[in-house]
Structure formats: structure tokens, C-alpha cells
């Protein structure tokens, strides 16, 4: 009986904590990442995740030749930096923000439509033995018609 009670309380705690973290991630994405797209129009899609130091996320998306795009990737300040790379279908690196002082945005346009791969990574910065830090990372796309 006691075990069931303990597990029930902890399960409830997990559910509340998970929803809370996810709601915080959504709020973070809207308050910190969305404004970085200005003056581009946000496409309306939502991509955000809690990443731990050393963890990677990937995103696949088609980009069209008629548009100018802005990519914004913002992580919570406790993550220090968020690295991202853009790769083509042959895994060639098209852009890396590491070479651009960990810029949070990248403006680009294409001569022809392409599917690109985005790799986002939270670099490891804690000392060995320390608890790895985790935090929300939001990925958003803005567009406008090519001038």
C-alpha cells in the first residue's frame, strides 16, 4: 500500500513537472525566439525541445526558391551556446553558426528549392562529474517573398 502511495505521488509530481517544463518551453519559444524573426513572417510551426549538454536534434525541411528565409535558434541562457549547422542532401556543410560567433539567426535564400537538414547541438561545458545542464532550445522559421 505504501509503495503504491509513494508511486502515485511521484507519478503525479512527474506529470505536473513535465507539463510545467513543456509549458515553460513554449513560453520561452514565443518570448525569446519568435521576436528574432522580425521583420520576417513566422511560418506558424513550432519546434522546441529540452536538450541536455552534448545532445543533438535534427530537423528536415524543404525551402523554396521564391522566399527569403530567416532561421532563428535560441537556447536558454544556462546552455551558454547552441551550435547549429545546415547540411545539403550530400551532408556537405552549407553553414555553421560556430564560424559566426554562435549567431542565433541566419538569413538565406535559394536559387532553386531544396530540402536541407539542420543539426542543432548543445555543446558540453560542465566539468566531468557535474550534473549536465539542460534547457529549452527553440527553432523557428520566418519568410518573406523574394524581392
Amino acid at each position, binding site marked *: 500500500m505504501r509503495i503504491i502511495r509513494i508511486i502515485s505521488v511521484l507519478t503525479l509530481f512527474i506529470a505536473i513537472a513535465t507539463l510545467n517544463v513543456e509549458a515553460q518551453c513554449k513560453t520561452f519559444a514565443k518570448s525569446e525566439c519568435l521576436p528574432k524573426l522580425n521583420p520576417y513572417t513566422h511560418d506558424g510551426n513550432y519546434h522546441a525541445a529540452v536538450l541536455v549538454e552534448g545532445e543533438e536534434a535534427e530537423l528536415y525541411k524543404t525551402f523554396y526558391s521564391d522566399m527569403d528565409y530567416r532561421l532563428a535558434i535560441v537556447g536558454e541562457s544556462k546552455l551558454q551556446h547552441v551550435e547549429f549547422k545546415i547540411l545539403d542532401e550530400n551532408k556537405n556543410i552549407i553553414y555553421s553558426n560556430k564560424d559566426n560567433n554562435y549567431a542565433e539567426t541566419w538569413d538565406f535564400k535559394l*536559387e*532553386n528549392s531544396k530540402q536541407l537538414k539542420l543539426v542543432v547541438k548543445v555543446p558540453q561545458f560542465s566539468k566531468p562529474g557535474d550534473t549536465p545542464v539542460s534547457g529549452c532550445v527553440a527553432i523557428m522559421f520566418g519568410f518573406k517573398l523574394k524581392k
Partner: protein
Amino acid sequence: MNKKHRIGTGILTVIILCMILLSGCGSGGSDKTQKTQKNAAAVGQPKDNTQAIQDIKQAEKIFNALPSPLESAMLMKSAGAKFDRKFLNPVDNAKNYTTQSSQALNLGIFTCDLSFASLYDQTQLIIDYMNAAKKMADGLGILDAINQSTIDELEENINNTEVIMKIVSETFLNSNSYLADNDQPAIASIVLVGGWMEGLYIATQIVDEKDFNGNKLVGRIIDQKLSIDVLQNLLNSNKENPAIEALIIQMNKLKTVFDKITIKTKPIKTEIDKTTNTTILKSEVTTDMSLATFKELTSVVAEIRGTFVK
């Protein structure tokens, strides 16, 4: 095993599950992180913290991003498509959608129609389609994605396309972030599929076959081949949902037609426009779609979309 040890094992298992759960903050995408969670839960064995952390690090989150309804509508407009309301799903149909999957599909469809109407200054239709999208969002239990203040703001800015697009973008963000945060990635995927299919349906219907060669809109339709595998991956990552299973079959049929279209690309070269600090991705691409394939695609898209809006 004594009682104390059993209690300790139970608590440790729950703590590990808690840590793993906290690492995931969802959005529509296939997700190796989720697989890690399932594996840990399935094994049911307590692990030490180091192992749990290692599991998290090895996990990888994958997002399969389809064009949003707003982006699809924008692409049609930029390709010179003319507005015709007969291709939109009539708002009166909204009352027919009572199941979760039909509401999700038509939330995407009505949002695409709303975006299309917005870009062509169809003032009354904008309000009507926003209300239809609201009905679908309400049916799905998406709280406050579209509320009365959204409709009021829309009415106040009905002649300002830029503000309307911002409102449409915000409402769509509210809907899909709500679904992602409430652990409903399958429903979020269905919404995206509905929106993407509606864009493809309108585009294929608008093309005049007499004006097929060199038609910019045909080019945009060909481009959708680039998204079909993303769409399939998105659905496969949520295939335990029965509604998704049916969509997978329909999308496989669509893929067989897209497979008849050829797209050949050469490696990308980049150039930076220093005045705008914009990277230009240059590459040669050759595409080919016959009129017969276009007709087949139009027919298959109409057939599938017909099952969505019935």
C-alpha cells in the same frame, strides 16, 4: 528481495523515468528520445544515474517540418495563382467534422484556406475561415488558440494583410504548440498533413493544363516531391495512432505518383550578399514532370482530399 530494497527500487525507477521524461519537450517529429524512454520503461530495471544520463545524451530528437499552411498559401500566391473560392473547403462543412482526426485534418485545411483568403484580401472569407478553424480547434480541446479577441483583432485589421498574416501565424503556432505540449504529436501531424494537402489540392486545381509548360505553379507542385519523405517520416513516427495508419496508406499512394517526377540537383555553392548579410544558396536543378503524371497527381490528390473534407 527484502521490502526495503523493493521500495528503493521502485522509487529509483520512478526517479529515472522522471529524469528521462523531463528531457523531452515535444513538437511534431519522430523522436529517438521517445524510443529511449520506451526502452527504459519496457526494461523496467533500475539504472544508476550515470546510465540514465548517458541514455539521454545518446538520444536524438528529429523534427520533420512540413510547409505550414501559411507558407503553402504564400508559395501559391508567389507563383501567380489566381484566387478562386470554389477550390476551398466550404465553411458550412465544419459542422460535419466530429471525430478527432477529421477535426485535426480540417484545422489544417481551414487554416490553409484562411491563409489563401488572407493573401487575396477576401475580407468576409477571412472571418468565416477563422471561425471555421476556431470550431476545429475548440473541438480538439485546444484552449484559447483562437478566441474572441483573435476574431475582434482580425475584424479591426481586416484590410491589413501583414497584420492578418501575423494573426494567422500566431493562431497556428498556438494550436500546434498546444498539441505538442500536451503530448498529442499524432494530432499535430494530422493538422500539418491537412494543411499541406489542401495547398497541394488548390495548386493542382488552379493549374490550367493548356498553360502547363513553363508554368511557375507547376514548378511549386514539383517542389512538393521534396517534402513527401518528410511527410512519410512524420507519419511513421506516430503510426501507433489508427488515423495515422490510414493516412500512411494514402500518402504511400501519393508517393508512387511523386516518384514519377524527376529532380536532379548539383551541389550547392554559397555566396554572401554583404549588403543584406544574406547567404545565397546556388545550385543547378533540373526537373521533369509529364502532363500525364500531372493529371495523375491531380486526380490522386483530389481523391485523398475528398476523403478529408467529406
